């Protein structure tokens, strides 16, 4: 690639944090109009790399070149005024502020509010991303929130648009529309740096891909000419183990939800509206849906953190809607929430203490109200050994573990309590591929032994891999479950709510 054709070149950039080299002599370049993928597992260093380009983090060594001149953004403001814009994975939005205010906060020199609102309407219609500038962001769906971020970027006419895992909050139909928008931008000359670990997306969208593993560039390819399997193996560095499933005969219905409605505890949360489902012994029910459509609320309703009318939830025929978490644990209904630090585990407490968090009842770790710390520690050690949790020992704080290891601990803690029903939310979110595979295998093994599993996830591939039946949450409502085998992507997308009110970009430029 000639220099004049290069918009941004990253040359030998290194960034180390205590105990981990996030980026080790990383080099790649992006040309105007190019859609360039940064592909890698969680922890491969993609986020650190783009944070450097966006001015949030400074490299220890190496350099970046923008249109032939040295590029050293000290702050995101500097990056933005150069022409770099970024759509964040975890949104950089403010729920209690309205759309226009949120857009203004991400711009260098925003026009007065009234003019800005007009511009927002214009741009959002041009790109098929309808948005009302006066609405509070807290009231928007995850997909709509992403539109706010994208429009905030587009209003600044960026030369380089960074998108960090943008499709995790979209239905398949919405993904298609987003890709149309991105292709249009690319045709207009905007370079796009597209971060993902989803191979099919990258193959359909990107012109070139840089693959990162453990902070190093392990390859640069044209993703359209490589198979998904080749890309995956470059990314993971080993042959992937695909979970195998022994199908068990489905037994009795263990959990049954009938017309369950619960108001969300969070002012900007999604209330559950008339959710009905049932799960049998040995069955894995997958529940998909875009983030923020009632996943947290459904988990809370099942775990007992949110109470409902008694008969709305039945466990083996017994009404349990009004029972708290520990009473449900006693019966055999266990749960593992999405947020590992601060919900499934207490960050500053040791693994031993975290084992006691949910394990006291079924593992008989307390007598007469007094904890038997010896037994608790044994339980923690058992989880660590059986689930390959990498940690120096059970005395270490939960927050000292990597995401994947902590998730294995959390899932292991529930699995080893031998539940009749296990509810998990995003069991492999932010977890490296090998840990994810072993977690899925553990869930399948449990089902094979006759337990029922309800897996709430936003990862459709995961759900298709492990579920017997599939249902989707959309604005707090659950679709009737359908057998997972044979469902097409389009059907799944429609169950998730289709394209909501998005439309294809008007290609008239």
């Amino acid at each position: 690639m000639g220099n004049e054709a290069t918009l941004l070149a990253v040359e030998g950039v290194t960034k180390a944090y205590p105990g981990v080299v996030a980026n080790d002599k990383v080099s790649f370049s992006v040309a105007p109009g190019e859609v360039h993928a940064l592909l890698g597992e969680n922890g491969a260093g993609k986020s650190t790399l783009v944070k450097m380009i966006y001015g949030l983090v400074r490299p220890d060594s190496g350099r970046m070149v923008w249109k032939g001149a040295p590029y050293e953004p000290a702050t995101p403001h500097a990056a933005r005024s150069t022409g770099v814009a970024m759509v964040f994975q975890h949104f950089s939005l403010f729920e209690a502020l309205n759309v226009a205010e949120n857009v203004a906060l991400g711009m260098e020199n925003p026009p007065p509010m009234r003019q800005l609102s007009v511009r927002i309407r214009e741009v959002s219609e041009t790109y098929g991303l309808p948005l009302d500038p006066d609405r509070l962001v807290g009231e928007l769906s995850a997909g709509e929130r992403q539109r706010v971020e994208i429009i905030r970027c587009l209003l600044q006419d960026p030369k380089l648009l960074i998108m960090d895992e943008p499709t995790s909050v979209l239905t398949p139909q919405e993904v298609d529309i987003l890709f149309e928008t991105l292709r249009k931008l690319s045709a207009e000359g905007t370079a796009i740096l597209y971060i993902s670990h989803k191979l099919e997306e990258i193959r359909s969208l990107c012109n070139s891909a840089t693959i990162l593993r453990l902070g190093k560039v392990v390859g640069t390819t044209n993703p359209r000419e490589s198979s998904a399997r080749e890309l995956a193996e470059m990314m993971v560095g080993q042959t992937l183990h695909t979970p195998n499933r022994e199908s068990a005969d489905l037994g009795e219905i263990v959990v049954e939800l009938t017309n369950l409605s619960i108001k969300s505890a969070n002012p900007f949360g999604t209330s559950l509206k008339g959710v009905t489902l049932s799960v049998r012994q040995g069955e894995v029910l997958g529940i998909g849906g875009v983030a923020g459509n009632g996943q947290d609320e459904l988990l809370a309703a099942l775990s007992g953190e949110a109470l409902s009318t008694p008969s709305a939830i039945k466990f083996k025929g017994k009404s349990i809607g009004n029972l708290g978490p520990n009473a449900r644990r006693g019966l055999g209904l266990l749960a593992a929430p999405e947020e590992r630090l601060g919900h499934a585990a207490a960050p500053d407490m040791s693994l031993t203490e975290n084992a006691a968090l949910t394990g006291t009842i079924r593992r008989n770790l307390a007598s007469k109200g007094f904890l038997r710390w010896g037994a608790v520690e044994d339980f923690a050690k058992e989880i660590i050994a059986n689930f390959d949790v990498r940690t120096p020992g059970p005395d270490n704080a939960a927050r000292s573990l990597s995401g994947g290891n902590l998730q294995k601990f959390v899932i292991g803690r529930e699995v080893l309590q031998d539940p009749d029903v296990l509810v998990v939310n995003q069991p492999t979110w932010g977890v490296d591929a090998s840990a994810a595979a072993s977690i899925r295998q553990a869930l399948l093994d449990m089902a094979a032994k006759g337990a029922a599993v309800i897996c709430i996830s936003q990862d459709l591939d995961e759900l298709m891999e492990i579920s017997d039946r599939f249902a989707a949450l959309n604005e707090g409502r659950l679709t009737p479950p359908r057998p997972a085998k044979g469902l097409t992507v389009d059907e799944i997308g429609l169950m998730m709510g289709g394209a909501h009110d998005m439309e294809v970009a008007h290609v008239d430029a």
Partner: protein
Amino acid sequence: MDLSSINPLVLLASIMVASTPILLAAIGEMVVEKSGVLNLGVEGMMITGAVCGFVIATETGSPAVGFIAAAIGGAILALLFGFLTQYLLSNQVATGLALTLFGLGLSALIGQSYVGIKAPVTSNLHIPLLADIPVIGRILFQHDMMVYVSIAIVAAVWAVLKFTRAGLILRAVGESHDAAHALGYKVVRIRMLAIMFGGACAGLGGAYVSLIRVPQWTEGMTAGAGWIALAIVVFASWRPWRVLLGAYLFGGVTVLQLNLQAAEVPVPVALLSMSPYLITILVLVIMSINRGRAALGAPAALGRVFHASH
């Protein structure tokens, strides 16, 4: 009992004076909380402002210089809080309490040789024309400068928060420090400025007690006004004009109970003197019953520790 001894005109006129200390402290604290920081040290900053203002005013003979000194004193104490909570990431509740305990001690130490002295007199303004309007002129337009300064501060805070980019950034930081950080805003710096503004306002409020309302220095003379200011911020759902309303309502109660005590109504003095505090509790309860609506005004990041990690 002699209710006729209560002159409604004097009563109404004194409400503004009685309310000003709390108003100043509360509007400052509101800005701090809007930035996402909970500073429970208002009482400590007020009493420090009270003593700084009193000492400097008596030494220089100028109440105006005293007020400036009080604002500086309050801001310096707030800076201490800011340094601990923003740079050393200490717990905001504990640090605020420490600030109050420290401020009470420090002010007693500074003021020990000033007990019993009278402060230099602050003259009341006599706003031409307006002050001569019958009844209303007496109630609204014949007060000292600081009464009007306090209202001007409320108006300024309202305008800045609502119409300016600085105000938008302040609200954004209080809403989500992580998002603000990701967009490149200097969370800590913005919060430090807000904390210092809050300290300066609390200092002014304290000095108003020692220089105008009482006017002399006694230990612990703010008597919980700083805490009441905190309650008023909650009452106001973090909205500037409602802070004004809350402070004036509270000032009204205080003035009324003092007048009733003087008029020797057949209600135990103890009950009257505890009434401002009981009413504050009542207001807090009413506000928390309507939590749904009030919570929307509360900054989402209030009291949470911010540490920019990678």
